[in-house]
């Protein structure tokens, strides 16, 4: 009887705790997190920081956070991936301190872009990629638009193999799609095709499907399973993106609500440090934003630095 009572008490408490945690969770997190204190004696950082957003940026930011935490043992940085929309929404409502996005906040509906401060931490270049058997390595931009809008349906029209063109798109709201449509297709709406979100899945499909064309970030061209296309004769290389000759690239943004403070500022500074920009970024397949010779605004206007 006694042990049963204890058990029932424990169960009741457990149930209560789950209930209370479930109810209170949403409201309390943003108050406790993001508090950071500078320890006056040592100057070391402490506190916790929550980062959310673009799943494409997650590996980079998580790797940087790991090194950051190794250098500042009292700091706890959590990096979640939920998509750019989620990251921007959460940073705008203040539930995370940093929201990652692969598009400008201005391009997303319902985000108070004027309240958010943009920190461009990296650049990612992307280009059209085809199944190796298609047999072309270079494509004119006008032809690329015709391919993606369905006006050209067979690769032989472009001097390739006699294969039907199979489009592999990204979801409507995807940042990768937005960038590719804007800078590679000059704003044309692509025809309907297979739609996949994950770059790895896209690469797999391109490799396995005869006549397939899609688009991938440079970091996925590590082997010869897919062929990266040069556009108008400009090869998709780091140098060409940095000099502004290759048009299809985008910033990876870290947004803060208002100017970054304390821990968020320290972490963003760390991301911009030469250490991260020159080594970690390269390892993860990104281009350092510090070496860009051109810059771009939210409308897509490009100018030399």
């Amino acid at each position: 009887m006694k042990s049963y009572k204890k058990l029932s008490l424990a169960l009741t408490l457990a149930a209560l705790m789950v209930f209370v945690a479930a109810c209170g969770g949403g409201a309390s997190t943003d108050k406790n997190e993001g508090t950071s204190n500078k320890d006056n004696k040592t100057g070391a950082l402490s506190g916790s920081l929550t980062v959310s957003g673009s799943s494409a940026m997650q590996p980079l930011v998580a790797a940087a956070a790991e090194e950051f935490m190794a250098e500042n043992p009292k700091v706890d940085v959590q990096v979640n991936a939920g998509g750019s929309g989620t990251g921007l929404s959460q940073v705008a409502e203040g539930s995370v301190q940093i929201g990652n996005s692969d598009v400008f906040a201005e391009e997303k509906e319902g985000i108070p872009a004027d309240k958010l401060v943009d920190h461009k931490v990296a650049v990612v270049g992307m280009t059209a990629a085809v199944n190796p058997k298609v047999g072309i390595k270079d494509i004119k931009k006008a032809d690329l638009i015709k391919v993606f809008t369905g006006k050209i349906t067979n690769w032989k029209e472009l001097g390739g193999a006699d294969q039907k063109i199979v489009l592999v798109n990204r979801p409507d709201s995807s940042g990768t799609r937005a960038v590719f449509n804007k800078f590679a297709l000059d704003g044309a709406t692509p025809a309907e095709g297979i739609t996949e979100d994950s770059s790895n899945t896209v690469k797999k499909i391109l490799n396995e499907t005869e006549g397939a064309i899609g688009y991938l970030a440079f970091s996925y061209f590590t082997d010869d399973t897919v062929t990266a296309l040069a556009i108008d004769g400009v090869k998709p290389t780091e140098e060409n993106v940095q000099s502004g000759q290759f048009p299809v690239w985008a910033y990876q943004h870290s947004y803060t609500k208002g100017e970054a403070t304390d821990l968020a500022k320290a972490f963003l500074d760390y991301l911009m440090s030469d250490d991260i920009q020159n080594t970690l970024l390269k390892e993860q397949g990104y281009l350092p934003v510090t070496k860009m010779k051109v810059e771009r605004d939210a409308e897509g206007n490009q100018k030399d630095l």
Partner: protein
Amino acid sequence: MEKLEPAKDRLLKSKKNWLDGEIRGNILVIMCAVIMISATISITIFLGTKGLQSFIKNGVSLIEFITSTHWNPTNQAKPEYGALPFIFGSFAVTFLSAIVAAPLGIGGAIFMTEIAPSWGRKILQPVIELLVGIPSVVYGFIGLTVLVPFIREHVGGLGFSLLSGTIVLSIMILPTVTTIATDAMSSLPKNLREGSYALGATRWQTIRKVLIPAALPTLLTAIVLGMARAFGEALAVQMVIGNVRDLPTSLLDASATLTTIITLNMGHTTYGSIENNTLWSMGLILLIMSFAFILLIRYLSSRRKM
């Protein structure tokens, strides 16, 4: 040895203790029920308000949403919000997979209960339990790696198709159908079988003419439950169906379902935007459909009692 108290005294004395335990247990169980009920109700309310926002706040036409085949929410000049291809895709894969899984599942159940109750069950039961345990992402990945290329090379089309989605879903709902069908068959009273045999019916005649009709309402429940699961499945389907927003014209055409469009787009959209709200509306449709499935199951099982 101490003399034992009479049972009557003992019970009277410990009445307080007994009552305490009784009340505590009561509260515990009521609390569990309240949490479950309030969770369901709050999800329904939340999804209801979120899902209706695109029609009320953003002025998307409900008629357009469920009848138009044009889905183009990111087009700045003229956004279109027709979810019919996804609704159609959801229903198509659900019914097709039920058509495949129902005979298989019920056949397996008959095999386990009537043909080989001892060794058949010993083999089939763990196999089915194993099928339940495999996560849906694994089904999807196997489908993407094995099924899609197979269909592309041996059947035709791109491989990403309604057919692939149907096959993956059939395997996923097979355990649900088989388990409930097995329960239905084995809970039939023994005298049904014995009576039939006594009348000179063969085993197959007994199964076909007596047992299946007797268990039919529960067998239908099994199929509907399987369909409810198929309707809500997202991940595995997304990996093999191709996610094309055109209405499919054949089994080999790529298609999309409500769930795949939600999972593909949810993370990219911002809270409160029209696109995000239309995704919630699709979620609401899924919820309404699952209510419809539950009503259907209720109706079927009430028929059984009569």
